[in-house]
């Protein structure tokens, strides 16, 4: 997809413009620059201390990349932000994860509300075994949108934002499993966008894709950051350097260094970071 076309992709929705101001406010109401913040975050799988005292702040409307060697806990950290670790048996968490100032791990914080606001893209594309259309409307339906016209509108809009519309518009009723890997991943992004999250978490979204599909996803992330906060975990350092504004480097469950991407890659303060970035280990 060419960059110049991306402007056309973000079509103005046809209906319900009256609440425009309200929405704008909703997005800006949390005026702090940081939208997610972790405080002394510790995590154990059974006896394995997977995250150690993570203190990190994520800026709004920026792409933040988390890099590090395999098993350093970067995916685990990402999964803390929408509490996907709750699914795993034997996982224990201490510390706070603040989303717009509220602790996600508070007893009265509703896990589903937060998951709606914080979308997630997984490493392996995981479209549901149903049609493309049904995949997109699955989320909205869960959140009580039943009107078919609106659902169709959402489908078109989201697929366009995920730069998939032109490829699938004639076969929305086909099973999503018939798409290629890269298309499936963009479908998953569209599916996440359909519930209008405020933050997108991406767990190595291009790890199982070929270079061309990867390029498309990266272009997409570049567009997405204009409206969303994106936190991306990646194995690929070039990718982190290309698309992110901020980068955090993790090693053995600890956050070693965190700063602007240019600074991390050009002038790392820590010896460990430098070794990793220059390919001496990992």
């Amino acid at each position: 997809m060419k960059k110049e076309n991306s402007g056309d992709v973000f079509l103005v929705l046809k209906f319900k413009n009256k609440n425009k101001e309200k929405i704008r406010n909703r997005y800006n109401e949390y005026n702090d620059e940081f939208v997610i913040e972790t405080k002394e975050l510790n995590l154990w799988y059974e006896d394995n201390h997977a995250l150690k005292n993570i203190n990190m702040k994520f800026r709004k409307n920026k792409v933040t990349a988390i890099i590090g060697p395999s098993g350093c806990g970067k995916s685990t950290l990402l999964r803390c932000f929408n509490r996907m670790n709750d699914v795993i048996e034997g996982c224990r968490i201490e510390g706070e994860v603040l989303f717009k100032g509220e602790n996600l791990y508070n007893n009265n914080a509703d896990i589903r509300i937060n998951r709606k606001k914080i979308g997630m893209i997984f490493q392996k594309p995981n479209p549901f075994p149903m049609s493309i259309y049904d995949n997109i409307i699955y989320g909205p339906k869960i959140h009580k949108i039943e009107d078919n016209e609106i659902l169709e509108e959402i489908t078109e809009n989201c697929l366009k934002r995920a730069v998939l519309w032109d490829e699938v518009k004639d076969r929305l009723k086909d099973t999503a499993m018939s798409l290629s890997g890269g298309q499936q991943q963009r479908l998953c992004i569209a599916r996440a966008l359909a519930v209008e999250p405020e933050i997108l978490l991406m767990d190595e979204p291009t790890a199982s894709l070929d270079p061309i599909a990867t390029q498309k996803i990266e272009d997409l992330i570049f567009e997405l950051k204009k409206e969303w906060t994106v936190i991306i975990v990646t194995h690929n350092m070039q990718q982190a350097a290309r698309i992110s504004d901020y980068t955090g480097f993790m090693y053995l469950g600890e956050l070693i260094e965190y700063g602007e991407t240019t600074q991390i890659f050009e002038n790392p303060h820590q010896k460990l970071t430098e070794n990793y970035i220059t390919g001496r280990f990992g």
Partner: protein
Amino acid sequence: MATETVYDQILYKEDLSYLKKNRDPIIKWTLFVFASIATIFVFLIIIFLFINGAPFFAAVPLNDFLFGTNWLPTAGDFGALPIIVDTLLVTFGAIIIALPLGLATAIFIAEIAPPKLRKALKFTVEILAGIPSIVYGFFGLIVLNVIIKDIFGLHYGNSWLSGSFILAIMALPTIVSVCEDAIRAVPDYYRNASYAMGATKWQTIRKIVIPAGMSGITAAIILGIGRALGETMAMLLVIGNCKTFPEPLTNLLDCVAVITSTIAAGWGPTEQGSLEQRSYLALAIFLFLMTLIINTIANLILSRIQRKFSGERSKKRFSEFRESKLYKYMQKYKQLLLTIIISGLFILIPIDFVSRVIGVSICIGLSFLMYIRKKVPQNKKKWITYGIIIAFVGWVLSTWIGILLAITICVLILGTIYVIRRISTVSQQRLWFSIIYLFSLLAVIIVGILVSYIVVRGFPVLLEPDFLTGFPSDNGREGGILPAIVGTLELTLGSIAFALPLGVCAGIYLSEYAKNNRITKIIRAGIDNLNGTPSIVFALFGFVFFILFFGLGRSLLVGILTLGLMILPTIIRTTEEAVKAIPQSFREGSLALGSSKWQGIGKIVFPAAIPGIITGAILGMGRSAGETAPIMFTAVRSSARWITFSLFEPVMALTYHLYRLNTEVLDAVDKAAGTALTLLILVLLLYAFAFIIRSRYEKRKQW
């Protein structure tokens, strides 16, 4: 750039508190209740059996039961040793026949057959596993026993040999199918590595594939043994049911009795609550424990295979113990330890002095042989194994045809082995492949004869005008089998209607909601073991629980409940497996959109698992349509001139009708063949249907 248009709309309510109204807890508790009911039933069977059997063990010493040699409950003699020994002998004979045929067929299907033939054969084998045992019994009684009688010039054909043979045919599909799975599970890179070093195909199979699949093959044998041990109806018809040892012990042509057939033959006329009745419960408990041990071993082996090839590491259980010095000493002297323990057992059990001496000396002799085997160099080890086997075969042969002939044959066999080991690898391959072809052909022919005999004999009967639509008269000699067909359908549909909701809910709860703790593990183990429990045990439970305890009469309802309980474990397990096969990423994908746990399961996981669940349900239906033992005492009547749909009246059933036409009614072979064919068609159609659904679903599956 059109950034400002993005939040143009409010699609989603600002207030998301509706999400807090959550039906999840209600659904979870409903599922929990269903799962508990299913689990309680599963354990009720075990508990009831033991409670009702216990007074027997209080009244009769265990020694008299296990080692007494005279079984005559009406006279107060409860020595079950002949029955137990006979059971083991019949099972042993069946495995000796079924293993070479089954393994050869499995190798042929997995390694040699072209893909299309493989598919067709695999499909056939799986369907054949569904042939009802009463049909085998019918075939054994009418054909096999007559052949044996004529060949050996006996008065009766009912014998150990025919029992073993029928069991072998019956266990063949199980053995072929599990062996084939085990062989297919060996990764291709093993084979490629072997070919790359210049090995022939046979060498690869013999030295790489079979050793790698060995644990699966062992599991197949054990499952085959389990199936053979639990077989009731066919045994009842073909082995003669005399509760004595064969005379001499290797006499294949003597009549014998197995545990299941003894129970089935004796249970009916016993007085309620009498010691006689409890003695049959005691036999059932013994049988249950035997199959429990066998199934546990098979399950352990099968789960180890799964771990082996999936690369998952086993849990470090007893790791401290393993590192202790004691364990290392035990490892070093395990042979000695085993010898001492087994010899000790021989000394402790109450048998006469001579048997004690023989037992202990066999034990010591064997362990001495094993000790020598350890000392000899690697390439000579085989000969000791061959020697032991040949000595055994020689002894058996000598009791049949005299010592001289036996020795000649043994020498010939040893010579042949020696020659085979000397010829070139290509000729070896040719030789072994011809043996495999021969054996698989033999297996196909045997099963083919069975099926075609029933078809040829039964088809003309089926075409008779009144057979399928008429009512029986003259004890089934005349007329048709309509009430039996309707009764079987009622029982089958009823049992699935009872078992499916319970089983599916329990399966979903166990796989999705139950915490992986000790209680869940115990429940799972209980379900697994009931899965392989002989149907005669369910029959006794149904009778004791519903008829004696609840006072329900012999009726369709009791039959439905008994059959339903019998297929419940299967349904729970297939549901659980179907649900588990759905990738975790679907659940996570749904959760990440803000769905509740049940929304994800109900809308994504369950629909994707439906084909698997349906397959399990249809297989369960096939099984309950083909079972005789569980309904024999609980639900059937021998003849009916009307069709009843009342739950509280007994019905006719195809299986029981066929049983009666073979035993009580003597001159109705044609009608019996017609009934057998009807039953065969009904059950095989169900099985075929189930496997077609499964294969289509596997083809469509894209994750």
